[in-house]
């Protein structure tokens, strides 16, 4: 039976009939704040707590009005409505929480940022102490864990690194060749490709891929371990979570990143070589000859030197964000996002610092 209710102004009575459940709210008449002295439930066929509360709220009970007289309720309905009435004071309509103004948001943000930096410094300190303690004792290194991490981080990333860098090499050579051909400077395209791929594109793109792929995975994994209290369990067993979890990952990244950058170099040059052959009539023999003439070892080394620095920062940020997960599922997601964003920002800034430094040092 559908729910109905009408208000009898003369008797100040609210008369309800039918099935009173949550959906019955639409059946409530417009009371315009008139008092309800009597609640008539003689024609009710069903009543649940949601329906009972709606009737009592219509009588203003949640706003502190006195309990109306109950008329015609069956004993079980009466018991239910009395039970609900006991808890009505707790259901008073509450004002919406005040929103933060710009000033308090800025202040809170600044404090959070300060805590974040302090936490990172603390983490770096602990990591340094633990690493120094481990240096003299190779027996305590987690070789197996290290090998597993290198496999995940290095071998797993090879296909994507090769694919990305090959395509970037193709695009770069194509655009550069298009310009160079106008001036008949076809052969200088080789110089440009080598310089760009080895020195900038490969290290930065590989770092970005690793930050998105491995950095996010590390944070999510350590964060979930934190939520499941696995990290507490490691500490309780007398092991150091930093030595067991962080140092193998950091070392693995240190090993994997330069290798990935080198693979990226080869893939990028190969992509450039293909385009040079098709578009600029530079045969692969000419390309390699030119490479032998103009490629300086330092160009290769600059790219390979950047890689471990990026690796350290990615590992630091990812592990630290993993450890700072709190015990709810949302913070795992938030920290994983934060890891990727922080890593990307760090990579771009570091790359700029490198560029300026190398120019100033005339390298």
């Amino acid at each position, binding site marked *: 039976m559908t729910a109905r209710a009408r208000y009898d102004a003369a008797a100040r009575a609210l008369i309800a009939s039918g099935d009173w459940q949550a959906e019955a709210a639409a059946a409530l008449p417009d009371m315009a704040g008139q008092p309800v002295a009597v609640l008539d439930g003689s024609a009710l066929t069903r009543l649940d707590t949601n329906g009972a509360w709606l009737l009592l709220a219509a009588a203003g009970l949640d706003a502190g009005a006195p309990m109306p007289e109950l008329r015609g309720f069956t004993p079980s309905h009466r018991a239910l409505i009395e039970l609900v009435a006991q808890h009505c004071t*707790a*259901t008073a*309509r509450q004002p919406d929480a005040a929103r933060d103004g710009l000033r308090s948001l800025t202040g809170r943000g600044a404090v959070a940022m300060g805590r974040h930096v302090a936490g990172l410094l603390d983490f770096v300190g602990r990591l340094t102490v633990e690493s120094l303690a481990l240096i003299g004792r190779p027996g305590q290194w987690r070789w197996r864990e290290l090998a597993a991490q290198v496999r995940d981080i290095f071998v797993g990333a090879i296909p994507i690194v090769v694919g990305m860098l090959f395509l970037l090499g193709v695009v770069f050579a194509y655009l550069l060749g298009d310009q160079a051909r106008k001036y008949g400077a076809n052969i200088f395209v080789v110089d440009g490709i080598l310089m760009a791929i080895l020195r900038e594109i490969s290290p930065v793109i590989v770092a970005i891929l690793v930050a998105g792929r491995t950095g996010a995975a590390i944070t999510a994994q350590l964060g979930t371990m934190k939520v499941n209290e696995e990290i507490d369990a490691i500490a309780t067993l007398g092991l150091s979570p930093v030595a067991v979890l962080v140092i193998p990952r950091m070392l693995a990244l240190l090993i994997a990143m330069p290798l990935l950058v080198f693979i990226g170099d080869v893939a990028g040059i190969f992509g450039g070589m293909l385009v040079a052959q098709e578009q600029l009539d530079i045969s692969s023999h000419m390309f390699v000859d030119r490479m032998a003439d103009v490629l300086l070892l330092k160009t290769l080394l600059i790219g390979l030197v950047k890689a471990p620095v990026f690796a350290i920062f990615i590992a630091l940020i990812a592990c630290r964000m993993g450890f700072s997960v709190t015990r709810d599922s949302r913070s795992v997601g938030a920290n994983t996002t934060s890891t990727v964003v922080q890593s990307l920002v760090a990579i771009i800034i570091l790359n700029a610092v490198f560029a300026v430094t190398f120019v100033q040092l005339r390298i």
Partner: protein
Amino acid sequence: MTDTVLEIRDVHTVLGGNSIHRGIDLAVRRGEVVALIGGSGTGKSVLLREIIGLLKPRSGRIELFGQSVWDATPAQLNLLRRRFGVLFQDGALFSSLNVEDNVATPLFEHTTLPHGTCRQLARLKLGLANLPADVAKKKPSELSGGMRKRVALARALALDPELLFLDEPTSGLDPISARAFDRLIRLLADSLGLTIFLVTHDLDTLFSIIDRVIVLSNGRVLGSGTVAELKQLDDPWLSAYFAARTEEASPHGN
């Protein structure tokens, strides 16, 4: 009203090559408070998941309110889901929402009430679950285990279900909170006319609030009845199970 709310006929389940259920038959009538017991690995929680439509049995029929769960269309299943509430073992509260919004979520999704009213109803349920008013704005992670269970109970009650499933409601609670939770369940069952189907290991729960106990053993229903009736059954696991309590009650050493 003594109609059947839940009926299970000849359910067989195979999980990972292991035969868990080998023909389960049971029925629960309206208004009963029924407990399902059995040793570890007898498939109590699996059966519960099959009843609430999360896991499909290999064969057999499960009916809720006369409607087969596994033959229902998604729309029918959703209507069915509004008529029962589930309390998961660890509460399964949404950690990103505060307590009030956790309880109000079923109301947000399944009714057309304005959100303010849903939150007021949520606070009513929190009150019914015996929680103080100040928990409403807290996050689940700030609550104790017992409070989390009560919030989960309030959420299970949000849509005023006719049938409530509880998965080990007192596990992880201290004895005092566990008994208080038992009393709360019984009080709600009596005052709201709920039918309750619970999976438990807790002997004290069985002795205090249960109308009928169903025992699972070797993939079948071993017996069903009051605790006194079950004690008459000759089964080694059941004897050891009830003996655990008599040992506890008898004084040690003197």
